[in-house]
């Protein structure tokens, strides 16, 4: 007998109603039930961070969260970052700094950085702190250099924009 639950959540601003098994992970629910396949599974035990999404403003490993725990929540995934055809400043910065090769880990790094930016003084981000942040996730292709640079450049640009508008 499967333990099924009816839940409602909002993903990238869109409401979804669905019935999921209690043990189904948020990652599998997003990917296979709702079609948000940009969230990737690299280890399914919370180390690699490829499945990082933003759940009610906090970054979470979607492989370590059950789908039912997202009942009533707001989730942001990589699909919600671009503005229509326009890449976000962070996405563009990743391309400019060659911060991705195979691109499998990339959505996790993007969501990790966005969650950090939303919660921190971007203008004050140092290279050491950016490296510490990026060290939360695994990338096998890039050696992290481009990722650190892309996060840092975006933080500085956003910090400057915030500074000049205030």
């Amino acid at each position, binding site marked *: 007998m499967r333990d099924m639950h009816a839940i409602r959540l909002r993903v990238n601003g869109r409401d979804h109603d669905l019935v999921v*098994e209690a*043990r*189904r992970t948020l990652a599998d629910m997003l*990917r*296979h039930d709702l079609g*948000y*396949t*940009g*969230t*990737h*599974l*690299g*280890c*399914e*035990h919370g*180390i*690699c961070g*490829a499945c990082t999404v933003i759940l009610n403003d906090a970054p979470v490993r979607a492989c370590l969260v059950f789908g039912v725990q997202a009942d009533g929540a707001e989730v942001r*995934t*990589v*699909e919600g*970052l*671009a503005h229509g055809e326009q*890449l976000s400043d962070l*996405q563009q910065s*990743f*391309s*400019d700094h*060659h911060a*991705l*090769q*195979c*691109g*499998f*880990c*990339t*959505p996790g790094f*993007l969501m990790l950085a966005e969650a950090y930016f939303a919660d921190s003084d971007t203008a004050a981000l140092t290279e050491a702190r950016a*490296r*510490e942040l*990026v*060290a*939360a*996730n*695994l*990338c*096998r*292709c*890039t*050696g*992290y*250099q*481009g*990722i*650190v640079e892309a996060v840092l450049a975006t933080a500085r640009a956003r910090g400057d924009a915030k500074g000049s508008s205030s």
Partner: protein
Amino acid sequence: MSVIGARLPRKEDPRLLRGRGRFGDDISVPGQLWARIVRSPSAHGQVRGLDVTEAASAPGITKIITAKDLPPGLVIPVRLAVGSADLSPYLQPVLAADTVRYVGEPLAVVVGDDPYACEDAAELVVIDIAELPAVIDAVSADAGEHTAAELTLGFGDTDAAFAGARHVVSIELAIGRHTGVPLEPRCLLAVPGPENSDLSELDIFGMTKVPVFNRDLLAGMLGLDEALIHVHAIDAGGGFGIRGEFYPEDFLIPWLAIRLGRPVKWAEDRAEHLMAANHSRQQHHRIAAAFDDGGRITGLRDDIVHDNGAYCRTHGVAVPELTVAMLPGPYRIPAYRGRVRVVLTNKTPCGTYRAPGRFEGTSAREHLLDVAATQLGIDPIELRERNLLTKDDMPHDRHITTLGTDLVLDTGDYPALLAAAVKEADRLGYRTEAHLVSPGGISPGGAAGPKPRGFGLAMFVEKSGLGPQETADVTVSKSGTVHVFSGGTSVGQGIETVLAQIAADALGVDPLVVRVVAGDTAAQPFGAGSWASRSTVVGGTAVHQAATAVRERAVQLAARMLEAAEEDLEVRDGSIGVRGDPNARVTLAAVARAAGPAGGYLADGEPAGLSARCRFEVARMTYPYGVHAAVVEVDVGTGRVRVLRYLVAYEVGRAINPMLVEGQLIGGVAQGIGGALFEEFSYDDAGQPQAITFIEYRMPTAAEIPPVDVLLTQDAPSPGNPLGVMGAGEGGVNAVGAAVANAVRDALGLAGGIGQLPLTPARVRALADRREGAA
């Protein structure tokens, strides 16, 4: 400015950044079933029984198969056959029948309509195995019983060289078992075609690296015509040699799909990946060099035990062969003998991992040179300078064959690159920093203190551009879009961008109008795949030739359209016009339309379309080379090694996109640091793997990888291809084990070698203790 050499942003990036890449498990189709592999829990044993009764009656389960359900005698053949050894007794069966030989060996497949249900049912399969003793250590294993092959390569009279030597220096070095570990686990989706379809009987998503080879092999095993199997090009989350070889699952999933008449998907989990996909690297070297009075090498020999795990897989004995073939590196060596014994153990079978055989061989040779430098009282850089082949030696025939090709070092100025690398390292302050007093203690060159620093350097020759061929089709469609259909595959390296730049250059168009499909067997049925740093060299040249042929054909047609002589035409910015007459000009799109069946410009008997197919054949590889330098800090108290600075100097012939070349090198360094310091598949005495999660298998994070300095040179264009390019995929990882080992040895002031990689905290502490004991 030519688009070749431009640091263009990657064509792959927008889709990947938006989460719109198409990786294996992103693709699902209606009616799809899921598969779960049941794997051996024992390292070695007789299978007494597999009871699937309870599992088969679990909810949602469609089918469970074991070896008894398969056609008899199915094994995975060798793709890269080298040497003369008969490996047929050591090939891996698709499913184990009577005997299991490593933990993780496939025993059964559970198929059902939900992956969670399949995992549950897989645990209900009752496995009865009578355990047998497991062979874990290849060096101490009985040679007669466990040796699968022995290879010896070399030249000159090595025995005489050692007998007459002024100095002989020898070390032992063990290289740890580790592997590529791409971040995307393996995944395969097999979709049987509609009955009586003439188009395709089987669609496959998830075969990368060598899709045409795998398609043909699968066709043979299934008894299907190869043209009825369509392997689709999709994104792959990293390759590194390991992904895309033909594994047991590559037969099982398609076979089940056909048998059940339903699409079947298999997506492995990380634990499966770490115990089932190819391991690599594990070797034990006993290497020695003979020197004359002037510190010149007169002979080199290496006796290697190569731990290949439980079976010979698709690479056969290619990795041990490459190890001994490439071992002489960039040096002038009058006499050399490399011997390697391939030993089978009860561990995961091995294959290639980025710079296969070279990471291992470079580690041994370059560490030996540093030990020799100490013993001979010569500076390590000076010792290398005295022994490098020079520009005047090129081309240099090693009189060795590897991967079926003659090993002829084709071009280069090794001393110049070494000098440039040392100059760059000094400009960046490497040696000063290495021998400075560090905050917690004092250094230089091995003095006592809690955190000594050290400098290490290593030099190497890479190989790239393995043939024998690659084929490319280039077609211009009526909108003016240029379509490239390459036999290479996209594994994250940026092949779409690089091939677009090559095609755009030849055709005089903007790279933005070029679309590249890499690794689709219907679009390019003659592809040889992406591996061995071959795609830019061999695949790129095929695209260059096909695009050039299209350009020539376009000029021919434009001449008819403009009623001008071909020699008066120029090609630029996507159009062809009469030189000096801005009004007499046609776009490439217009030429493509003119080449249509009703375009009005085709001569009798000419085929329609503006397209060309070219095959680039190459008999020998091309050999890039490089220098690595590292500064490390060793915490003697904890055994922790931190890499503070890292430099790669690399000759690439010609960089199509320097940003991508640098990315390959920097990413390779990170993987190399993993193998030098952190990553290791260890086993207990019973053969149980001790690293099956990312908690035990420690891949480096951004905290362990320093910013990498790159000195990219383009001073030695390859003579073997019209673009002058050499491969860049493996030069970043090749010498990391050597450079880090040398730097740690310098920091600790060791007289001998470090003995074993990776330099885990426990091993570093033992080295430090031994040093203190000796002092």
